[in-house]
Structures are given as structure tokens and as C-alpha cells.
């Protein structure tokens, strides 16, 4: 009998499991595949305040710090987290207005974003196009190599005593938190659902209806090239994220949508999204015209009805918890897992959770 079973080993499940185990609980962490191979291992790894929803800025700021200091709290595990300035740019008057409005909200939430002139923006980012008419600058930004996430968490989880079961899909939950898997049952006193876009299916095991929308996000990476940029770059609408890694490759993202679904994963890029995304990137950093595109892939991101997170107790079922559906959830992930672990251990979390009652009520009303 475990104290807690955490279902889903993405960044949310891993950090929750780690902090629960460190608080003295006997934890089992189950994933149907390998650790951090879904959203948490294939995302763009941008640690940006300028794409994060305003309500999440306080969490993201704390998590940003955690990523940069990951080796200190994760037994040396790291994701090559790199701090750099972030710029969000506008090419049209309409975008400039959007930029100003959004910077205002995020500044109120605690992100140190200042609006700068195009000339100043190009001092910060010499690779930037002449066509930029306004920019938001946030000195707190950065990125990671998200593909390292599983490798970074795994030893710390094991050291903390977490029992990690990969390739072990949970198929259902019988009363008394008896988890059914192909390899037999697992019982725990408490459960945490941390299933990314599959949270909807997991909630259904408990007869809870929680609609989760699936976004099929596309990413494109180039071959290594000489330095063309040194910031994390976005656009006012949030539909571009661009940075160059130390090895010279440039990662182009921003949430353009591809083809796929919950059952089959991310299947294929849509030609118009592929072209649109790389054109937008090259519009922002003209030197990208000389790049060669190496690979494009897709990952699945979860979104609730109000696009705010689902983190907290599951109403009506004692000792059942949920965590996920966080916009820019990679950025905030380690801190949110820590918060949920605090709540599960009976402490008052440092910052409020995002209880899901609101989402269930909406569902009933509809």
C-alpha cells in the first residue's frame, strides 16, 4: 500500500511525486510510456513570462528560478536551463496596441516587462528585423532543452524513494484507489491525476466529467548555424517562440496547430501551419533565411474551458487530487508540483491552487 499514487510522469507528475516523497510519503509514479516523453519531453522549453497567462506569472517567476537552480534541488539533474532576456515584438499598429495591453496585465501580475523602442530592441537582439515597430522587453526569460527533462528528474525520484513504473498504463481505478494495470493492481491511500491531455479520461475513471481540449502544437528545428540571435523572441499575439541553442540550432514554435488527437498523438504537420510558422520566424529574424530545416514534430498540450489550470482536490472524492492543463505549463511545472505536494501534505500552499470546481460547475450548467 502506497501513501500516494501519482498517475502520469510528465513535469507535473514528476515534481509532485518528488516533493511528496521528500516530505516522507511512500510514492508510486506510473506512466503508460517512458518518463517525460509526452508534452514535458517534446515542448519548446521556453521559460518566458511574455507568453505565460497573467494569472500564472507569480508561479512562473518562482519556477523560472527553480529551473535555473535545478541541479541544487534535483540531485544534480538539469535541463541545460539558460537565462537570457526576452522580447515580444509587434509588426503592426494593431499588434503594438495588443503588446501594450498585454504587457500592462503581466506587469501588474509581477513580470518586469517594459516597452522599448525598436532601436533599443535591436540593441538587445541584434538579429531582430528592421520591420519591428515596438517591443516588450522582459529581463527574466530563458529556455531549457526539454528533451532532457526525464533524465533530469529520474535519479532524484529514485533517490527520494519514489517507485517509478514506466510502461505501466493505468486502465481504471476501483473503489479504495485500487489502480488497475496490465501488470496487476496497485493500491494507494491517495491518488494524483497528472495525465496531461489524458486528464479527461482519468477523471472519467472517477466518474468526474472534466472536458479537456487538446492542442496539437508544432515545433520546427533547424540545423546548427552561426549565431543569429541571443534572446527568446516572441510576437505580441503569442504565436511565435524563437531561440537559438548553444549548439547553434534554432527552435521555432509558438503553438501553430498540426494534425493529431488524444488517441494517436501528434501525427503530421499541416502544410499551411508549417509554412506560416517558419515565415513568421524569418520575418522576425531575417538571418533565418540561411537556415536549413531539420525536423518538425508535434506534441499535445491540454487546455481547460477557461484556459486556466486544473490543480487541487477533486470535489466529492476524498484524497483524490489533480494537476495539469497549465498554459506554458513547462515553465511553471516544478513549482506547481511543489505547491500541490504541500497541499496534499496538509500544509497551506505558498500560493493558491486552481481548484476544478469551477470547471465541473460550468459543465453541469451547460
Amino acid at each position, binding site marked *: 500500500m502506497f501513501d500516494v499514487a501519482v498517475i502520469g510522469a510528465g513535469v507535473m507528475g514528476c515534481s509532485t511525486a518528488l516533493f511528496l516523497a521528500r516530505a516522507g510519503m511512500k510514492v508510486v509514479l506510473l506512466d503508460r510510456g517512458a518518463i517525460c516523453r509526452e508534452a514535458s519531453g517534446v515542448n519548446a522549453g521556453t521559460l518566458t513570462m511574455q507568453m505565460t497567462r497573467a494569472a500564472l506569472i507569480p508561479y512562473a517567476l518562482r519556477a523560472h528560478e527553480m529551473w535555473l537552480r535545478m541541479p541544487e534541488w534535483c540531485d544534480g539533474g538539469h535541463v541545460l536551463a539558460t537565462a537570457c532576456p526576452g522580447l515580444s515584438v509587434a509588426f503592426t499598429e494593431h499588434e503594438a496596441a495588443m503588446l501594450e495591453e498585454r504587457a500592462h496585465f503581466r506587469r501588474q501580475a509581477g513580470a518586469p516587462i517594459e516597452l522599448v523602442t525598436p532601436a533599443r530592441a535591436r540593441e538587445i537582439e541584434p538579429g531582430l528585423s528592421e520591420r519591428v515597430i515596438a517591443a516588450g522587453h522582459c529581463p527574466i526569460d530563458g529556455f531549457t532543452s526539454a*528533451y532532457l527533462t526525464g533524465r533530469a528528474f529520474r535519479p532524484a525520484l529514485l533517490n527520494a524513494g519514489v517507485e517509478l513504473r514506466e510502461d505501466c498504463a493505468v486502465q481504471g481505478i476501483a473503489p479504495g484507489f485500487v489502480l488497475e494495470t496490465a501488470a496487476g493492481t496497485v493500491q494507494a491511500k491517495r491518488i494524483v491525476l497528472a495525465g496531461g491531455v489524458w486528464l479527461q479520461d482519468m477523471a472519467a475513471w472517477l466518474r468526474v466529467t472534466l472536458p479537456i481540449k487538446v492542442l496539437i502544437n508544432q515545433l520546427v528545428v533547424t540545423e546548427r548555424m552561426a549565431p543569429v540571435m541571443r534572446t527568446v523572441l516572441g510576437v505580441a499575439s503569442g504565436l511565435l517562440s524563437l531561440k537559438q541553442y548553444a549548439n547553434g540550432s534554432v527552435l521555432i514554435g509558438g503553438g501553430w496547430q498540426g494534425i493529431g488527437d488524444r488517441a494517436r498523438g501528434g501525427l*503530421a504537420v499541416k502544410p499551411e501551419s508549417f509554412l506560416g510558422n517558419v515565415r513568421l520566424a524569418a520575418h522576425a529574424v531575417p538571418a533565418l*533565411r540561411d537556415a*536549413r530545416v531539420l525536423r518538425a514534430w508535434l506534441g499535445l498540450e491540454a487546455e481547460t474551458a477557461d484556459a486556466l489550470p486544473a490543480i487541487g482536490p477533486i470535489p466529492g472524492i476524498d484524497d483524490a487530487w489533480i494537476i495539469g492543463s497549465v498554459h506554458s505549463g513547462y515553465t511553471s511545472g516544478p513549482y506547481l508540483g511543489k505547491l500541490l505536494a504541500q497541499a496534499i501534505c496538509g500544509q497551506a500552499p505558498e500560493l493558491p491552487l486552481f481548484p476544478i470546481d469551477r470547471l465541473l460547475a460550468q459543465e453541469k450548467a451547460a
Partner: protein
Amino acid sequence: MSYDIAVLGGGPAGMAAATEAAQRGARVVLLEESAAPGGQVYRAPPSGFIGPVDADRRAGDALRAALLASGAELRTGCRVWGVGGGPLVPQREPAAPFRLDALDSDGRSFAMEARALVLCCGTHERIIAFPGWTLPGVLGLAAATILLKAHGVLPGRRVVVAGAGPLLYAVAAKLLKAGAEVAAVVDLAHRTEWLRALPRLAARPDLLAQGLAWRATLVARGVRVIAGAGVTAARGDEVLQAVQVEGAWIACDALCIGHGLVPATEATRTFRAAHRYAPAEGGWVPVLDADQRCSVPLLYTAGDGAGVRGAAAAPASGRVAALAALHDLGLLPDHAAARVAPARDLARAAKAGGAMARMMALRPALVRAIPPETIVCRCEGVTRAEIEAACADGAADMNQMKQFTRCGMGPCQGRICGETAAELVGMHCGGREKAGFATGRLPLRPVPMDALLGEFDYADIPVPKPAPI
């Protein structure tokens, strides 16, 4: 541009498939990245290049002539980087057409559509890592043939030819003809392996005669043939100077080496078709029915890309695939009768080809012998020790190993290191089937951004609606 059938790859399989389909009245396009169709074995010499007219040349010329007369549209110098549509577009009735994106010979990107797609992408060469394999002067047997056949260029003055399979003797014989000195032929197969294959090879007397002729050339010229041995190391000061065989160093300025051929499955993996691991056929191959149909509708694979069976079987399998595609599109009234002859040819040729393919299958002992500090993934500089450390850290399949190490993330996308790496992962996780393969993704080949972008206005970019604040 819209077609009934698109054929990807203009080797013998693709040429025959396109010819068959076009002769029977379908609108067909054949896409080939080289300047002329021919593929690996029948690679066309450049225009104005007067090479020897051997059996290969004649067979290749016959396929090319039939293709030109068939009415199929031929697009050479056309590198296909994108495949999509078809089964990847969910729930469309009738099925969405396939879409191919390609760079034309001027480097511009263009798209076309087809109702059915026949993949004839051939193979990549397998080169199992060994100390020094990344030195300039070490090249694949395939690369050596391209130099010889298409450019009339020698890879070196004094060459060692090593590895497995009949290609060894073909390359050595061609090197001699072209004026190089062949320091040694180092064949992993023992003589007994060749003897065991003989009865099956006898199904194709023409090929057998060709093989014997190559051997005779080597004997006549006094070339040393070392059987049952391999190159264990290469050394040199910046460029290759010598290779090690059975403990002794042989001086040379080029090493042509290949450990067999691996079916090119990037496209079938991209379409999420079912695959099976068939080491005797070269590795992972798409699951096919008797008519070369993949597990997803209107997608076919023929030639060595469907499992290595050699150049003689390739045209027959191409024709079988084309006939199935015509039938599935409702363009062929009497499929049963039409397929009899090519299916028979295929069965016969596959027998001899299969015996050859088995000799070129991966030899796990080579992988086990790789020293820990030897680089396996040259694009990303990942060593055997690093791959095994990732396995010890819990990477139990190719995709996770790749995430943990970057092995296979570089420009070759695992085409060169994939076999060695998969074998290493398989040793740790319980076999190649468990190790699996890297997910297929676009582009099939790196694409210059400039070719994709074209000229555009900012207003034309279909930027989706902003994310919520």
C-alpha cells in the same frame, strides 16, 4: 498538380512501377532526386561521360527507355522533403489525397497531390562504428559507387574495400577497372557462408555469373582477399593512412566500407504504417501484403525499401505494387491476370536476392566490439559509452535514448548511426523490437529555409487568433 499515382524514387523499383502504371493509362509522376533515374545499381552516368557499357548499364538503359516511352511524367533533380495527406488526414470521405512537397532542380519548393503513393526509396548503407571511422578517406561502398559511376572519380589511389555482401566485389572490381590499386578486400563472410548461399544464388545464373566475373578480376589482378575478417580500426593524421585487419595495419588512403543495406523507411514511418523487424531483410520493414500494400490505405512500398531483395527483384515488386494501386483506384479491370507474371518474377528473384540480403544482415558481434569511447553518432559526437550511460539511466527505447543523448538528432537524422545505436539500446532493453525506431517526421531531407519561404508579405501569414492573456 494532381495525379492518380505518385512514385517516389527512381531506382529499378520506381522506374518499373511508374512505367507499368502509366502504360495502363494512369496519370503518373515519378520523383527522383538524382539528375537521372537509375537508382543505386543503375545510376546513370553524367551526360558526356563515356563509361564502360556493362550489364548494369544495359539493364538500366532498358528500364529508362521503357519509362520514357510510358507517358509517366518524370521529375528528376527533385528532392522530396515532405510526404503527408492520405491516411494522416483523419476521417475524410473519400480519403484525402497524398501530398508531396519537393525541391525542384532550381531549389524551389513545390507541392503535388496523388490519390495513391508508391514508395521506392531504396536503402541506406549500414556502417557499424569502429575507431577511426570518422576520418576523411573512410567512405561507404555506396558513396564509392556514386563517385565511380556518376562522377568517374576514384575515392583514393590505394584502397581497402571491406564489409559484407556482394557489393564488396562489385566495388573492388570497379575500382580496379577505373585504375585504382586495391590493397585488400576484407570480407566479413567466411567462404563457407558463400558456399551455403550458392544454391539459392543459382536461381539467378546471370547474377551468379556477374559475381564470379568480379571475383575472377580480383584473382587475375592478384588482389588479396581476406575472408572472415573485418577492419577493426582506422588511423591517420587528419586523413586516413592505414586500417587494421586481424591485428596488422594495411597502408591505404581510402577505405570503402559497408556492413549491408538498411531499407529506407522514413516515409512509411511518417505515415505511421505498421513495421516489423526483419534482420534478414535489412532491419525494420513495412508490413506488406502479397501485393506490396502497406497497412494504411493506398500506400505501397516496393524495391529494397520494402526489405532488401536486390536489383533483380526490384522492378518486379515495383510492377506488383503499381498493379495493386491501379486496382485499388478502380483503374484496372483484370488485376488477377495482370499480376501473375510480375508476381512470379518477384518470387524467383527474391530467392536469390534474399540469400544475398542475409549475408548483408547486421552482425551483432561488430557492435559488441565497439570500444566505449568510439563515436557512434558523428553529427552530435555521441559515443558508445554515452549511449550506454543513457540506457543505464533508464532509456529503454530509441526515442528515449535519443532524448537523453541527442544521438540521431543531427543532419543525418539517424540514417548513419541508427543501426549501431539501436543495437546498443537493444542489448540493454531486451532486443531490437523493444528498442523500436525513431518516430518518422518531416522533412525527409533537410530543407533550405529560403526555398520554403519564397517571397511573402507579412499580411499573408495566416497568424492564428491570439492566445488568451
